[in-house]
């Protein structure tokens, strides 16, 4: 874990000279190996390792720093490492020749250090520290191209919104500390911790979870998580964060950092009581839905992915909310792989597009879907990876996404079924969302790799629009492998058998429904396939001569009216809806923040005016008043002798009179 820190320091010292990024690479490699063999394997499903050193004593309490490695953290940090490694490799090619490359590696190492630290922190304060450091690193990386106005805006926004979350987190920490007198995670949330068993170690004897402060603390923590993993309405920073380099987006804003929120929730899970959990679930659902809808309307490939990330995070949050945080972690892991992969692929594409752009002095946005198309033939490998990833995202069988997503949806369904009533809405929404997911990801695939390439005319024999370089491809392959089911479990269908679920298994309070296990996956898969087909037809059919693909033609003919129907009612409708909603998001939710910040600035100006003219004004007024009295006093001194005498004697006489009549 400390390797990246070393790397960071070394590179910081080397400054401009550290261009290659070898240091960072070796460091992350080392830490990956260690985390796999040194940490993960021994700890996984074994006793938790806990090392602590005294940090400082304040008042009667002593705070410790240290490492806490249990199943959860071990898994998390493994994921981080395994994702980080390929991204590093990828970046070597992707970022080649950038002027600030040394900073890039520096920041990246810093991030890895912070992220790993976050995963294995011993106490909440330590966790908080790394939590903010992660945010800081992402701030740096988003604003990596600091001459770009939008980038700077974006990173400021990201940091500030994260700050809101951080404050929530801090308040939570403070509350816990105030009531339990300790911040040690194992002491608080461990098997024997305060919250888990309600054992008395704090100021208050036996801990009643339904006290108001617990709720409050829970909400505070959740606020932190919301900001970090971009939950509605604090999600607005994530799309903007795409201003950073794509590799960064893939690592930080898709795979790891944004998942930290979920990780936090899983860590402090015992703290939550019903109220909080319900809030979490609802927020998660809203996020999932809204984000998925926004994703439909996007043309910027990275933005689509960003929104899809948000919606997936929504899934995880829901997972936590319903108490199945094992499922959430599972989905987190799988999602890390395929979403990272998606980004890398997108990155590759964008990379090429950018190259092309520079070659053929044409001004177009290399990230715009509308400018792409038919790239399948130019970059087949990328295409394959991307397809795998998208399938996984869409939750097709034999992919990891299938397992994890099903796990969440099914559990939710069981949960809702257990509670009944309006709760059923939630799984339904989730299902719809996953369908939408399938649709928009399909849309990306088709728009990018099928159809005719807009600028094909420019690609002459001499200038080849070629496949991404090896260094970029290898990581992609690795991740592609990672997003297939065998990596996670023996069975392609049953998520219960995946090793993550087996170990992290939480005892669910509600009965599992057999039929759900059959019916929901089927529904999902079917829906996904349907979506893809619709997408296929809708995006390909208009553009390709019928002769191209007979099966399709037939299918299309049969389903013609259906297509029409879909097109008119469903697809168009949805797309419109998504447009509207996106506009809403842009102008209302984000607008609100803008408005808020504007308001704050205005307000601050007013306050300053107040300060300058009222507060300070009073001071000066007082001074001048004194000065003026001094002026008045001088009126006596008019130089007239007799006036003087008159004055003096009059006073005497007045005095006498006063004393006589009093």
């Amino acid at each position, binding site marked *: 874990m400390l390797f990246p820190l070393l790397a960071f320091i070394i590179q910081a010292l080397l400054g401009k000279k550290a261009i290659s990024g070898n240091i960072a690479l070796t460091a992350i490699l080392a830490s990956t190996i260690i985390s796999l063999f040194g940490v993960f394997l021994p700890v996984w499903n074994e006793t938790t390792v806990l090392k602590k050193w005294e940090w400082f004593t304040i008042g009667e309490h002593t705070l410790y720093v240290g490492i806490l490695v249990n199943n959860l953290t071990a898994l998390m940090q493994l994921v981080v490492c395994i994702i980080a490694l390929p991204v590093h490799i990828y970046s070597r090619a992707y970022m080649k020749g950038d002027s600030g490359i040394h900073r890039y590696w520096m920041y990246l190492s810093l991030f890895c250090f912070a992220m790993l630290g976050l995963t294995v922190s011993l106490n909440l304060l330590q966790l908080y520290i790394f939590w903010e450091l992660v945010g800081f690193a992402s701030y740096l990386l988003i604003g990596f191209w600091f001459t770009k106005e939008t980038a700077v805006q974006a990173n400021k926004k990201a940091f500030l919104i994260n700050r809101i979350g951080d404050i929530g987190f801090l308040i939570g920490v403070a509350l816990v500390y105030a009531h339990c007198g300790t911040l040690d995670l194992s002491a608080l949330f461990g098997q024997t911790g305060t919250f888990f068993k309600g054992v008395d170690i704090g100021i208050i004897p036996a801990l009643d979870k339904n006290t108001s402060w617990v709720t409050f603390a829970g909400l505070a923590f959740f606020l932190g998580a919301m900001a970090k993993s971009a939950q509605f309405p604090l999600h607005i920073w994530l799309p903007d964060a795409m201003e950073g380099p794509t590799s960064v987006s893939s690592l930080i804003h898709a795979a790891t950092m944004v998942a930290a929120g979920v990780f936090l929730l899983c860590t402090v899970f015992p703290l939550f009581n019903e109220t909080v959990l319900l809030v979490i679930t609802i927020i998660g659902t809203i996020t999932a839905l809204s984000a998925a809808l926004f994703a439909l309307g996007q043309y910027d490939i990275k933005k689509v992915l960003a929104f899809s990330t948000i919606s997936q995070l929504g899934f995880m949050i829901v997972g936590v909310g319903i108490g199945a945080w094992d499922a959430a972690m599972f989905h987190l892991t799988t999602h890390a792989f395929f979403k990272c992969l998606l980004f890398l692929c997108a990155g590759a594409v964008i990379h090429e597009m950018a190259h092309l752009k520079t070659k053929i002095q044409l001004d177009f946005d290399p990230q715009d879907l509308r400018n792409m198309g038919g790239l399948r033939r130019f970059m087949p490998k990328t295409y394959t990876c991307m397809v795998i990833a998208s399938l996984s995202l869409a939750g097709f069988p034999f992919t990891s996404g299938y397992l994890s997503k099903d796990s969440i949806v099914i559990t939710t369904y069981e949960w809702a079924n257990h509670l009944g009533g309006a709760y059923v809405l939630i799984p339904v929404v989730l299902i719809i969302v996953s369908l939408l997911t399938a649709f928009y990801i399909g849309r990306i695939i088709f728009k990018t790799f099928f159809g005719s390439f807009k600028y094909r005319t420019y690609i002459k024999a001499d200038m080849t629009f070629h496949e991404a370089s090896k260094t970029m491809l290898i990581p992609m392959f690795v991740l592609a492998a990672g997003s297939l089911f065998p990596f996670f479990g023996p069975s392609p269908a049953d998520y219960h058998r995946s090793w993550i679920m087996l170990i992290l298994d939480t005892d669910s309070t509600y009965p599992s429904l057999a039929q759900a296990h059959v019916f929901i996956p089927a529904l999902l898969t079917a829906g996904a396939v349907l979506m893809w087909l619709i997408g296929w037809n809708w995006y390909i059919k208009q553009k390709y001569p019928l002769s191209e693909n007979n099966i399709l033609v037939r299918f299309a003919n049969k389903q013609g009216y259906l297509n029409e129907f879909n097109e008119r009612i469903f697809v168009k409708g949805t797309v419109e809806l998504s447009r509207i909603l996106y506009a809403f998001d842009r102008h209302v939710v984000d607008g609100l923040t803008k408005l808020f910040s504007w308001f704050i600035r205005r307000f601050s100006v007013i306050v300053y005016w107040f300060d300058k003219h009222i507060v300070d004004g009073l001071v000066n007024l007082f001074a001048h008043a004194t000065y003026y009295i001094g002026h008045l006093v*001088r009126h006596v*001194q*008019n*130089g*007239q*002798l*007799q006036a003087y*005498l*008159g004055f003096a004697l009059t006073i005497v006489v007045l005095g006498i009179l006063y004393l006589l009549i009093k």
Partner: protein
Amino acid sequence: MITLTHFLVVSACIFCIGLYAVLAKRNTIMILVGIELMINAAILNFVAFGKYDKINYGGQVFALFAIVLAAAAVAVGLAIILNVYRHFKTINPENIHELKD
């Protein structure tokens, strides 16, 4: 028979006249005269009271000293008024106000 009261009344009158002269007269000499009157009023008092102070004639003694001092003061005063006149060519206090805020 003239009682103490008469003396007091008279001296009070003289004092007031003197005071009036000091405050109202537009001539420095007259102011000096006013001062003299006030002092004399006091002296008159002293003498009058002194009549009842058989022990050590404090009143009379005081009166004598007062007369002497008054004389000295007035002498100085006159000299200075002369000096003022040299510079201002007037002894009307109203026109003498170089020094003021």
